[in-house]
């Protein structure tokens, strides 16, 4: 058995142990099971990375899952550069979140349950990224969705939490439906679900069309769009982004792990994994780029005015995910994955920092009621600041390299690229602004909460600050593996940094048109300028002139209202989907289908049978021998029939 198999198996074992014995035996020692398991996975993931860096690619089936005539699916693992990167991201963040949770979930009645679910999630995510066929990926895809449901609704006594869990689950279902159809379509087209043969032969069906209701649709475009549907749902892109901000009802470590670093990025991972399919469909690529760009700016604007610290970060996540799709859409899959990788560190750090703040503030999430926390919780403050600098894209930090890479690749990718580049650049400004808005409102100035809260302020325990510090290292240094050639990063392939060169065998390399270094410098300079101006604007608005934002809000009342209400998307969905569904359910299904048809059938059939059996049951004498005799003579009759006819 390969060592790699252990990576997902260890968290699975931890899950089973915790869920089976947690309630009565393990109780508050659950972390002694889950943490070592996940850390061990992390160690093996590091070994895996070094193997892959050494040029090893592992692709092997370990178990025949389904064999049904021509349909064969196995559980197998594919370890290539893309998987290796994802393994590092998932296991690192998961380990740190596990450790963080030891402090954060301390004294929670569902302690063992929490760790069991976290481990199950880690297992599912690892299955997703290590899959070597679409069905296994789909399994992982659904399993992470399920874990997300469990964990959002972890405090299920709270109605808002269970509602949010249901919302996340149902909204994801829309996307997964598309994804499932895409997988089925791949199987129908190519007769297999393994990556290698699918990607190898997808080119052969280029140009084929499918007749749907009289319209000729390009087959590959249809497949890619259906797959992208899944990505839209899972990665919370427009129009299915509504679940992610609500998902913040779950415990904060969950937000950091699932709704920032790993699960929501599964969509990006999937698109990058299916790069050979997407690359063949320019239409889909354009859709991906535009959806990503629009989501980025859309979520960024909403984040400007929100007050809930976790929701701001959640919208920021949506926005950054848009960035990643933007990169994928212009063909720079490597840049997208690079941003995914750096984003995992600084976004997890932001969430864990927010969790630390909430821990200190006894669960308060409104940044308007915070302020001046810098001196009470220095560790949290400094790590949070580093993460914010990183997300804002200040040179030297991880976020800078990935964001710059995306913006440059977008700029270099033709007219559509230019358009999404503009969206991305504006988003960069917004990102810097709202990130530092949190810093200035929460950590600077005077404390605006109650006296009781002030009395209670404290730095979080070691088990919480340690992951913060470790993630802060990542938030600063993670980007250094992908320093662009322009700044002296080694050149693997032309126009590529080390990271891109590492991933190039899997996701390919964008065909950038020839541009001058001057242009590249200009793009980079502009993004840095935007980031700095965003920070300064935030400083001006929230530190120097605290009345200014209020005034602006009064002046542009309509815009403010729209942003405050998140563009009324939830209300829109309520009107066009939720209300009609309820109406149909209540009036048609309950009233007519259930009440008349089904009940009529349900009551009518038994009544008829009852009348019929009234006369028929007299055959049942109750004598076993009569039955046995009938059986024997029946057997005899059949035997005679077979023998003589």
């Amino acid at each position, binding site marked *: 058995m390969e060592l790699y198999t252990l990576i997902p198996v260890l968290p699975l074992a931890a899950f089973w142990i915790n869920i089976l014995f947690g309630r009565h035996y393990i109780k508050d020692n659950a972390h002694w099971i889950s943490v070592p398991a996940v850390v061990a996975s992390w160690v093996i993931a590091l070994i895996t990375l070094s193997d892959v860096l050494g040029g090893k690619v592992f692709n092997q089936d370990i178990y025949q899952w389904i064999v049904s005539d021509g349909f064969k699916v196995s559980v197998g693992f594919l370890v290539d550069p893309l998987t290796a990167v994802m393994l590092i991201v998932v296991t690192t963040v998961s380990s740190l979140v596990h450790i963080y949770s030891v402090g954060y979930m301390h004294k929670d009645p569902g302690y063992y349950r929490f760790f069991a679910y976290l481990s199950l999630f880690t297992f599912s995510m690892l299955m997703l990224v290590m899959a070597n066929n679409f069905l296994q990926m789909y399994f992982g895809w659904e399993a992470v969705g399920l874990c997300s449901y469990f964990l959002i609704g972890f405090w299920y006594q709270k109605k808002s939490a269970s509602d949010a869990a249901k919302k996340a689950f149902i909204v994801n279902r829309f996307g997964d439906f598309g994804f499932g159809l895409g997988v089925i379509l791949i199987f129908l087209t190519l007769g297999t679900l393994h990556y290698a043969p699918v990607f190898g032969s997808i080119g052969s069906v280029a140009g084929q069309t499918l007749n749907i209701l009289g319209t000729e649709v390009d087959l590959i475009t249809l497949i890619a769009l259906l797959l992208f549907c899944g990505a839209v749902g899972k990665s919370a892109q427009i129009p299915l982004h509504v679940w992610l901000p609500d998902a913040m009802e779950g415990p904060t470590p969950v937000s950091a792990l699932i709704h920032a670093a790993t699960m929501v990025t599964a969509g990006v991972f999937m698109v990058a994994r299916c790069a050979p399919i997407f690359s063949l469909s320019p239409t889909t690529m354009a859709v991906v780029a535009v959806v990503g760009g629009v989501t980025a700016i859309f979520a960024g604007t909403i984040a400007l005015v929100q007050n809930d610290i976790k929701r701001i970060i959640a919208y920021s996540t949506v926005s950054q995910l848009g960035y990643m799709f933007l990169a994928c859409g212009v063909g720079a899959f490597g840049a997208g994955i690079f941003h995914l990788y750096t984003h995992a560190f600084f976004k997890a750090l932001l969430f864990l920092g927010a969790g630390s703040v909430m821990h200190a503030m006894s669960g308060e999430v409104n940044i308007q009621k915070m302020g001046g926390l810098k001196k009470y919780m220095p560790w949290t403050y400094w790590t949070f600041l580093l993460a914010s600098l990183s997300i804002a894209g200040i040179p030297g930090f991880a976020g800078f390299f990935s964001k710059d890479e995306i913006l440059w690749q977008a700029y270099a990718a033709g007219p559509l690229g230019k358009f999404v580049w503009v969206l991305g650049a504006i988003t960069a400004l917004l990102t810097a602004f709202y990130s530092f808005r949190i810093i200035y409102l929460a950590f600077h100035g005077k404390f605006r909460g109650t006296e009781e809260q002030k009395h209670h302020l404290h730095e979080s325990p070691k088990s919480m600050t340690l992951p913060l510090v470790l993630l802060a290292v990542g938030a600063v240094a993670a980007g250094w593996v992908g320093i662009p050639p322009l700044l002296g990063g080694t050149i693997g392939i032309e126009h590529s940094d080390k990271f891109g060169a590492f991933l190039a065998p899997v996701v390919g390399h964008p065909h950038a048109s020839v541009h001058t270094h001057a242009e590249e410098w200009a793009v980079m300079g502009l993004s840095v300028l935007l980031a700095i101006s965003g920070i300064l604007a935030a400083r001006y608005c929230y530190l120097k002139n605290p009345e200014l934002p209020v005034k602006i809000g009064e002046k542009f009342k309509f815009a403010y209202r729209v942003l405050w209400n998140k563009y009324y998307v939830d209300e829109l969905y309520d009107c066009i989907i939720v209300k009609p569904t309820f109406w149909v359910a209540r009036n048609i299904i309950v009233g007519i289908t259930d009440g008349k048809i089904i009940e009529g059938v349900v009551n009518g059939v038994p009544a008829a049978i009852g009348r019929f059996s009234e006369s028929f049951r007299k055959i049942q004498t109750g004598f076993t*021998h009569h039955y046995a*005799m009938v059986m*024997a003579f029946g*057997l*005899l009759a059949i*035997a*005679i029939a077979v*023998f003589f006819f």
Partner: protein
Amino acid sequence: MLPELFFYYNATVITVLSALVVTRSNPVHSIMLMLVMFFHIAALYLFLNAEFLAAIQIIVYAGAILVLFLFVVLLLNLKKELVTQIFIVRWPLGLVAMAGLLVLMFAGIKSFTLGPTGDFTIEKIAGETHTAAIGTVLFTEYIVPFEVASLVLLIAIIGAIVLAKKQIKT
């Protein structure tokens, strides 16, 4: 000559004993006759190169299942059995069914021909002993049915305990 004699002896004894088994009035006698019959079946298995099955036949059938029957018979302690009628009123019907089946089966067997043979030869069994040969097949190709069989037994044990337990008055 001897193998034929051995077989005919066994076959006769098995047939006669099974006929006696179903017609005795005393269940204890019937069970003892069945015990003897099982021995002869085990001997047939030995003759068919299935020594492990022969041992299983004795251990499981004679040593466990029949003892279970015996226990139940003793537990019920039937006094009426010896004086009441043995067969149901319409027992000739059963005889007809039996005769019909027998004739049909014999007729079917007469025209029976053997298909292609496999690789489980006497030499192979002698080479690795029958137990090992059967075990290899059982634990590789038939491991899932084997596990299912263990579950069936487990369920049977639990079911038997639940059924036979005296109701605890609450």
